[in-house]
């Protein structure tokens, strides 16, 4: 009966032999039915018994994460077969450690080599670009320096001939490559530090180059700086070093440059082949690892979980065994015994483990067994508050009431179809979608609640048909039961006409299912529909609340709490029924007794009393005033009956609040303090429904 109540739990003590402990915990972990208690609460995390093993697992996980990062970098797909490997034995753990260590070392070595090669490659590529681009710069410098000539000509008119004869001044230069985004501050710094006595030319390298350390693509530019003198040279060099520009030796003569360029090209080609081979090797290593990596992750996590659990146990030094305390559902004790026996056999130990049931006064934990359908609703209910131990579980009722009440508010066939089909898609594809393990929070909310949304959609379709609402339009399936009985001229001359149900306009029997489509074109649709919707909402609400109170009765009977039945349930029922159920009754009476198609004024729409006003007057002890033509009351004796009901209901209030605490106080006159008597945990189930 676990659907309607939480499971019966027992506190058990488990005696495990140290050798068998690991296998037994592994088997129990696969079952997932126990909750272990921490028997070493005041021990620090790093002083627990199995902390070294946990550390080794952490190390293994770190290596696996490193491998995963490298695999992802290369874009190799990681195989996820969905299988669930068991936790390996401690002996195999050493093998796993060795494998990971080897893989990690190999990968680090390959990466280091690749980095060195890439660095070399980068240098050669940059040199190649320099040799190509600086050609332009040198051409300008050598070919008569037309720029410098024009500059000097105007300033020094006298000695111009002598200057020209001496030829262009001998400028020293450095060439290098720098990141493109560093060029503006670099230029500025050069200008300021050298007081404008250096000349910078730069050209962008179009193709992005690969940074060896981070494997990012970066854009760089070639620059060349001309200066005169050694002091400026050292200053320029310092600035280049500061901005992390790499300088390359660039020969002046064009023939030397061409030779160098060719040499560089051959070296680049050689390096390329070596680099490709290194990358292939790395790819092969990673692909081999990628086949097993998800399995390894699962195994390592299981080992870690087992050791974390073992850390909760108490080591009984005298008897070389571990003691654990756990909460177990009594139904599954057999299964657990089997699992323990399997574990002992696997570890090859001779001493069987002992599962000892303990009696305790502690409140056991609430455990609700769920399947994939009910788990969504159970989570929804638990979010408001987890029920106490062995209280009636509100979740099975929530499966229907929650989507239904949602649908009463949603009520549109068209939108309901959309919602239901979206949820149906999620449900049909749940295996593939679940395996994807998407991290987005919003997605997980929708996917986890797919059954809830499916039911909400289906119920909304039903209420949509009741309200005759498809994307805010009505469907006319059976033909309206109202028709127009005005003639052409009246229709043409009037802005608004009213169809009288007493006349031929109404067929005298209602539309078979749902709301008549005529209301879609009526101006007073909203007024009419509002009254109807409010009444049925109150009717549903009152019955829902009554159901909740009846559930609390079931709880009181189960826990044999006579006091609660007398002092809580009875006054609650009286209060609810005498006030709100009476109001529901009034609604039904009004629906039955009053109608729009009678001749009697007293039973017609003019005299039909407003339930709301009646109720308010009832509670305030005011007398109803109806217009003279109509009756004051809906039935004989209503005035007196109403006064009686309100008085009795009001008398129930102090009983609800004070009766039980006073009785308990009297019963425990000498003992506990008063404060905790007033809060009853059993009221929770009432509120959840």
């Amino acid at each position, binding site marked *: 009966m676990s659907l309607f109540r939480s499971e019966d739990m027992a506190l058990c003590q488990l005696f495990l032999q140290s050798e068998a402990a690991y296998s037994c915990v592994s088997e129990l972990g696969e079952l997932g039915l126990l909750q272990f208690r921490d028997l070493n609460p005041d021990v*620090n*995390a*790093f*002083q627990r018994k199995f*902390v070294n093993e*946990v*550390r080794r697992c*952490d*190390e293994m*996980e*770190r290596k696996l*994460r*490193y491998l995963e990062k490298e695999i992802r970098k290369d874009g190799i797909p990681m195989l996820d077969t969905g299988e669930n490997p068991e936790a390996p034995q401690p002996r195999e753990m050493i093998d796993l450690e060795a494998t990971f260590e080897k893989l990690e070392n190999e990968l680090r070595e390959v990466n280091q080599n690749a980095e060195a090669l890439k660095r070399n490659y980068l240098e050669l590529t940059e040199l190649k670009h320099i040799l190509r681009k600086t050609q332009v710069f040198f051409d300008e410098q050598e070919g008569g320096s037309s720029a410098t000539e024009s500059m000097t000509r105007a300033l020094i008119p006298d000695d111009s001939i002598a200057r020209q004869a001496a030829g262009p001044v001998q400028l020293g230069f450095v060439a290098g490559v720098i990141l493109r985004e560093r060029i503006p*501050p670099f230029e*500025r*710094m050069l200008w*300021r*530090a050298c007081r404008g006595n250096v000349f910078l030319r730069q050209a962008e390298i179009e193709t992005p180059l690969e940074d060896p350390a981070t494997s990012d693509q970066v854009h760089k530019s070639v620059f060349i700086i001309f200066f005169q003198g050694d002091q400026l040279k050292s*200053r320029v060099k*310092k*600035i280049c*070093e*500061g*901005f*992390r520009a790499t300088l390359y030796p660039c020969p002046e003569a064009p023939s030397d440059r061409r030779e160098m360029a060719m040499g560089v090209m051959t070296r680049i080609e050689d390096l390329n082949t070596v680099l490709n081979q290194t990358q292939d090797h790395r790819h092969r290593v990673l692909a081999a690892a990628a086949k097993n990596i998800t399995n390894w992750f699962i195994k390592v996590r299981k080992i870690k979980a087992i050791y974390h659990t073992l850390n909760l146990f108490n080591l009984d030094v005298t008897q070389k065994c571990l003691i654990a305390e756990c909460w177990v559902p009594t139904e599954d004790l057999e299964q657990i015994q089997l699992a323990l026996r399997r574990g002992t056999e696997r570890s090859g130990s001779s001493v069987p483990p002992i599962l000892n049931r303990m009696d305790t006064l502690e409140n056991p934990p609430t455990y609700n067994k769920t399947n994939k359908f009910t788990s969504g609703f159970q989570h929804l209910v638990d979010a408001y508050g987890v029920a106490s131990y062995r209280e009636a579980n509100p979740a099975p009722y929530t499966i229907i009431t929650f989507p239904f009440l949602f649908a009463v508010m949603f009520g549109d066939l068209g939108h309901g179809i959309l919602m239901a089909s979206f949820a149906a898609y999620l449900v049909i594809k749940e295996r593939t979608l679940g395996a994807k393990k998407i991290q987005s929070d919003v997605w997980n909310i929708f996917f986890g609640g797919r059954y809830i949304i499916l039911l909400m959609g289906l119920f909304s379709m039903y209420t949509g048909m009741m309200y005759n609402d498809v994307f805010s339009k009505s469907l006319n399936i059976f033909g309206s039961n109202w028709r127009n009985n005005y003639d052409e001229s009246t229709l043409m001359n009037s802005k608004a006409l009213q169809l009288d149900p007493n006349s031929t306009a109404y067929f005298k029997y209602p539309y078979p299912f749902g709301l008549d489509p005529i209301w879609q074109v009526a101006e007073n649709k909203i007024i009419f529909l509002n009254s109807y919707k409010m009444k049925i909402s109150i009717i549903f609400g009152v019955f829902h609340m009554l159901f909740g109170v009846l559930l609390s009765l079931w709880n009181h009977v189960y826990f044999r709490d006579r006091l609660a039945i007398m002092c809580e349930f009875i006054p609650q029922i009286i209060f609810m029924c005498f006030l709100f159920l009476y109001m529901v009754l009034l609604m039904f009476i009004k629906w039955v007794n009053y109608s729009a198609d009678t001749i009697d004024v007293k039973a017609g729409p003019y005299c039909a009393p407003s339930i709301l006003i009646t109720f308010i007057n009832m509670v305030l002890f005011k007398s109803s005033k109806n217009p003279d033509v109509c009756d004051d009351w809906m039935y004989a004796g209503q005035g007196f009956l109403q006064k009686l009901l309100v008085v009795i209901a009001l008398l129930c209030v102090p009983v609800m609040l004070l009766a039980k605490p006073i009785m308990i106080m009297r019963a425990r006159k000498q003992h506990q303090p008063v404060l905790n008597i007033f809060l009853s945990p059993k009221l929770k189930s009432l509120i959840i429904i």
Partner: protein
Amino acid sequence: MLGSFFNIDGGYLEGLCRGFKCGILKQADYLNLVQCETLEDLKLHLQGTDYGNFLANEPSPLAVSVIDDKLREKLVIEFQHMRNHAVEPLSTFLDFITYSYMIDNIILLITGTLHQRPISELIPKCHPLGSFEQMEAIHVAATPAELYNAVLVDTPLAPFFVDCISEQDLDEMNIEIIRNTLYKAYLEAFFAFCKDLGGTTAESMCEILAFEADRRAIIITINSFGTELTKDDRVKLYPKVGKLYPDGLAALARADDYEQVKAVAEYYAEYRALFEGAGNNPGEKTLEDKFFEHEVRFNIVTLPTTVF
């Protein structure tokens, strides 16, 4: 009224800040850490705090420098995140906080260059919060004027440098003077900024900055005994935003030894309390320690009431 607009710019950051504050290690954490025997134990315990798995990807065996770097990296990431989400005036406020680290970095780099250390060795030692673009080119400069013209003029520290420009070469003595002059200008600018903002910021920050100013004045005075720093030079280094301004500073300027400094502090109740019981004997707290404790107390007070 102002409170209703606060959340637009400051709501997210305030929530984040409160979260960080709750994650600060408590007395119980320190008691546990004291019981650790190896660095691995430390790592294991920190996994359970707000620090989480910050050391998860470090290969064992751990070294102290690795832990130090990772802790600092965590701080820098959090600070940068807040700075990136901040708008005026919070962004300027956070920038002001980074200026003190920038000043320290500059001085570190200049000192390193003086001692002929290669720039690549010095850069990793700089505090990441105080890094700026032109940092690596500092070793170019030989005099403060050059330093300013070449490097600092583009940085936010440029206005603080106005008093330091001189043609003297950078040497040991001058570097300290530069550091203290920069810091004085920075403190005064920060103080003026906070005062302008008004409200709780002015109340809390001006207290802290005033104490910082007085503390520096006292420490400079005490450290200058027995050095070549003249009394006039000393006066130029005192920040004018503390409680000691103007009378206390004038008295400090005339002081010749530790006792006279203590006598000046007697006039100010909080500072007298700090001088009592301070000494250089083992077992006693030094003056620096007492100043540090006092400063921390200020910072604690600002936490729950800060509304920016």
